């Protein structure tokens, strides 16, 4: 039977997370239908139809679906679920919000944040913030899966899937959208950034953090992260925290500045492709995971780095 992939989009644009989740879906089976649920979402549906590997795009448009509210979106997916044996979404804030609701309504277990498809019913997923990898086999007739997109390459363009309209389900009327406050920063967000530069307690103050980290971030077009120690000390806001209790990231390049490398921080960034550590203490554990280590004073090295870029 076919696979239903929930698209991540803002009605106008399809997120690149969907192209990555599609790669995971096509490893499970060949007949993948992408569901674009929204309002005025035709543009996103047309982008989905171009992805190579999608055999069909379903569009459901209704005011209740405009803002990805969990209850109407879950009701829609459940109404379509009879024709599918696997339901997949990227593990974005939308996928993580709605898919467990779908799984419970279908009375099946969810397999969260898979990083590898071993067989159509068997997957690898990280537990303990990636400090162990579990291989799990689903015994349910229907499978509900979220995908850690950092582990899959994006599907290429070049497809031309047919777009079909499907009806929205009745809105359970439990929630309403009030407003969005999306980061106005020009910097990319942590979880999808290609480059991240993070600061630790060695920065010494919020002012110093801004003074030495941000110019390098601007030069690189990088997102800014922080260790829990830096957040606890008030040098950086909590939503910059990378680690077991913060965000788990896997950029192409991660630059750790003045971060000692506590387990809880390593858990959040050790899947990065290339790790650079800059630290005064040459014994710091961060050097044990860094591809490139520079033993140096941050306050000299970072301005120099900014000039060299």
């Amino acid at each position, binding site marked *: 039977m076919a696979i239903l992939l929930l698209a991540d989009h803002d009605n106008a644009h399809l997120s690149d997370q969907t192209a990555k989740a599609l790669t995971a879906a096509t490893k499970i089976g060949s007949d993948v239908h992408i569901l674009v649920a929204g309002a005025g979402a035709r543009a996103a549906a047309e982008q989905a139809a171009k992805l190579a590997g999608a055999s069909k795009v379903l569009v459901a448009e209704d005011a209740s679906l405009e803002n990805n509210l969990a209850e109407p979106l879950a009701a829609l997916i459940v109404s379509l679920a009879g024709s599918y044996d696997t339901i997949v979404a990227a593990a974005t804030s939308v996928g993580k919000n709605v898919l467990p609701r779908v799984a419970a309504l279908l009375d099946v*277990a969810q397999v969260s944040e898979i990083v590898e498809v071993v067989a159509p019913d068997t997957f690898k997923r990280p537990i303990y913030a990636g400090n162990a990898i579990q291989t799990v086999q689903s015994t349910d007739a229907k499978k509900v899966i979220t995908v850690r997109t950092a582990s899959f390459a994006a599907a290429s363009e070049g497809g031309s899937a047919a777009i079909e309209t499907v009806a929205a389900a009745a809105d359970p009327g439990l*929630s309403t959208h009030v407003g969005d406050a999306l980061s106005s920063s020009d910097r990319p967000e942590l979880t999808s950034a290609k480059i991240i530069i993070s600061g630790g307690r060695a920065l010494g103050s919020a002012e110093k953090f801004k003074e030495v980290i941000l110019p390098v971030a601007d030069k690189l077009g990088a997102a800014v992260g922080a260790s829990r120690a830096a957040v606890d000390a008030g040098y950086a806001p909590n939503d910059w925290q990378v680690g077991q209790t913060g965000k788990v990231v896997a950029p192409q390049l991660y630059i750790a500045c003045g971060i000692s490398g506590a387990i809880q921080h390593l858990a959040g960034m050790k899947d990065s492709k290339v790790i650079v550590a800059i630290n005064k203490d040459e014994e710091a554990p961060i050097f044990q995971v860094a591809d490139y280590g520079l033993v140096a004073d941050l306050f000299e090295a970072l301005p120099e780095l900014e000039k060299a870029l």
Partner: protein
Amino acid sequence: MKILVPVKRVVDYNVKIRVKADGSGVELANVKMSMNPFDEISVEEALRLKEAGKAAEVVVVSIGPAKAEETLRTALAMGADRAVLIETDDAVEPLAVAKILKGVAEAEQPGLIIVGKQAIDDDSNQTGQMLSALLGWAQGTFASKIELGDGSAKVTREVDGGLQTIEIKLPAVVTTDLRLNEPRYASLPNIMKAKKKPLDKKTPGDFGVDTAPRLKVLKTEEPSGRKAGVKVKSVAELVEKLKSEAGVL
């Protein structure tokens, strides 16, 4: 209004876990255990709502081994009023946890259930959403702010790229994110007092829930490790290596 807060006993977040050599799981013997950090945030939020006069009672519930009583006592020491321990030595998957909690909710009739967004052991991030679905209630996940109104709540949610605010009908399930609050530490007198607070014991069977797993764990292994790379001598050398060798600049 009553607030129900589920809490889970997990390996302390500062412990470096070890995978068992035979691939059967993670070593849990003689490892420091604590309350799941997101659940501490949930307990704290419930207590703040009570202290603000918006809730009358905070009931904490845990599903786990007999030792999960310690986790419940911690929540009671923080200030929760009452605890329910649903005792089982089995590993209970999120769907079964949600089914048991549904039973607890039907018995307790809370106006709000505050759940940690995920447990830091299995990292599932499912229980709150599943519970909300089974109860047919609204859900407000990954909350960084909760404002209780009359019959509804405004929840500000941490979403990719920023914040989303939604209004949900009560009763509802809210799951907590890191920025919601900073949990308090229990004082010594409160830890003593917590020993005398009421704690009921039940089993999954009392709620008619079958906890047989739906997922078969075939293997647990160490992630492919990273090796230490090279030390560079200067910023110039670093930039050169990132450009030519790593190809990431």
